[in-house]
């Protein structure tokens, strides 16, 4: 029983009309989720700037408010006040729709992210598959932006986005199947409830594959080939400014928040934790995941295009398949009360497999292969 269902029951007991019982809790839930998402995104922007400047041994924005906390708001106001420029040769209708097509699916993901026990908008029994399906719509939005701009660089970025998303979706889905095997359900609430041991311990290899794959899905460094500033200027949003650019910018951080929430739910036992209330635990874990993402961004250089696809097909896909078969055998053989032995076996296998594959996985000794 989610909080939303309880709200509906309360309204029903007070003799509200049927359509209101259906609509009012849903609208209230949506408004709460959107305001939480936008607030956390603002905190994210500030946190990333401060953290990345620490990594680069500088101070970062610290003038606007205490510790520079109002800097993202100033940035937002600046972006909104900019002139909205549409290129002469652009396909204007699609140029207008594209930012919406990128941003809306990202908000839709939050419908199945559980912020606490029962604090979920819709406990679908296909929860995690829904996330994969919805987030694949954003690719089309990115491609629409790339095509409609009528710009060579944005077009290259669009082609890269398709190569990247299509390749990385497969290992991500395979690593999710490993979780579904252990839990026996796709529902996000049931996945969290099944984690007496967080799945990051139970399936370390699956976690690594999912984490890297979701980095690629959210176009963060080192997988940010679509925006690669030094090669194709800014990629698909090169011809955007003003509010439309703000949609892309918000979407970029929104998808980081969404995937941080999903990684928390799938692998870090979601809202569960001692002493503190569930929502606080959830937010702490989300911030931890995001900090690691920023850490990776400020440490690793960007992939080359051939390295990107080769990494997905030659490294992550075979490991994901082996991981899946391994988990399936373990679920059959090892009884549920001996999960700690599973943890030990899986850590051993993960270490051996990664070492082995990093020996096998070569890319022509620095030669660019086509």
């Amino acid at each position, binding site marked *: 029983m989610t909080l939303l269902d309880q709200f509906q029951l309360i309204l029903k007991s007070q003799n509200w009309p049927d359509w209101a019982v259906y609509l009012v809790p849903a609208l209230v839930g949506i408004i709460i989720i959107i305001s939480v998402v936008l607030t956390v995104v603002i905190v994210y922007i500030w946190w990333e700037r401060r953290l990345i400047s620490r990594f680069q041994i500088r101070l970062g924005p610290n003038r606007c408010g205490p510790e520079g906390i109002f800097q993202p708001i100033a940035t937002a106001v600046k972006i909104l006040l900019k002139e909205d420029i549409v290129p002469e040769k652009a396909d204007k209708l699609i140029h207008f729709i594209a930012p919406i097509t990128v941003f809306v699916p990202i908000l839709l993901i939050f419908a199945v992210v559980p912020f606490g026990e029962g604090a979920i908008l819709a406990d679908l029994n296909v929860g995690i598959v829904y996330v994969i399906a919805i987030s694949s719509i954003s*690719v089309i939005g990115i491609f629409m932006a790339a095509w409609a701009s009528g710009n060579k660089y944005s077009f290259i970025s669009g082609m890269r986005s398709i190569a990247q998303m299509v390749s990385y979706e497969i290992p991500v889905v395979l690593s999710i199947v490993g979780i579904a095997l252990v839990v026996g359900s796709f529902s996000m609430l049931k996945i969290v409830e099944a984690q007496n041991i967080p799945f990051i311990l139970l399936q370390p290899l699956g976690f690594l594959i999912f984490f890297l794959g979701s980095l690629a899905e959210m176009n963060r460094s080192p997988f940010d080939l679509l925006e690669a500033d030094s090669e194709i200027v800014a990629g698909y949003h090169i011809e955007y400014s003003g509010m439309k650019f703000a949609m892309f910018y918000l979407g970029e951080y929104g998808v980081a928040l969404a995937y941080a929430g999903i990684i928390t739910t799938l692998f870090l036992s979601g809202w569960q934790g001692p002493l503190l209330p569930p929502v606080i635990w959830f937010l702490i874990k989300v911030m931890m995941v995001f900090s690691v993402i920023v850490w990776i961004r400020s440490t690793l250089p960007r992939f080359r295009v051939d390295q990107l696809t080769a990494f997905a097909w030659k490294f992550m896909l075979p490991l994901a398949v082996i991981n899946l078969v391994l988990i399936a055998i373990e679920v059959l053989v090892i009884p549920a009360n001996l999960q700690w032995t599973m943890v030990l076996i899986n850590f051993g296998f993960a270490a051996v497999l990664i070492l082995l594959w990093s020996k096998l996985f070569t890319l022509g000794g620095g030669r660019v292969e086509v």
Partner: protein
Amino acid sequence: MPELVFLLMAAVAVVSALGVLVVRDIFRAALCLIVLFMTVAGVYVLLHADFIAVVQVLVYVGAISVLIIVAIMLTRDARQGQPLGNLKYVAGAVAFLLLAVIVYSVITTAFTLSESAPLEETVKPLGKLLFGDPGYLLTVQIAAVLLLSAILGAIAVIREK
């Protein structure tokens, strides 16, 4: 409420399907096709087939339409579309005949309606049906082998000598 949502979905579906046919710009036509796929997914949700709906979005919107768009990228003059050929009247007649056959068969078929309540959890029964003992395991495996051989065949055809 569900009837209203269904009518909305159906209207959008019909309009976007017409858009696929009428719109000249092939890229816009492909986008219309994506809208059509989404409305079909919505209809599945109304039928309590949530797994099918999600897979519809995943496969058709996430994969097949991306393939269509990539194919469009490889064509010339995507914005003008293809001008009508010499056989346009013949093609129109054949298409109209096909439409007549489909409409006739849909109208005259007596569809049986199920009286049972929709399932709360759809994934498990579906999985049992596909991979269970009195299920369609052989069919699923044959389909998988067929797809694999199709992929291998495609690679063999396009491979550089």
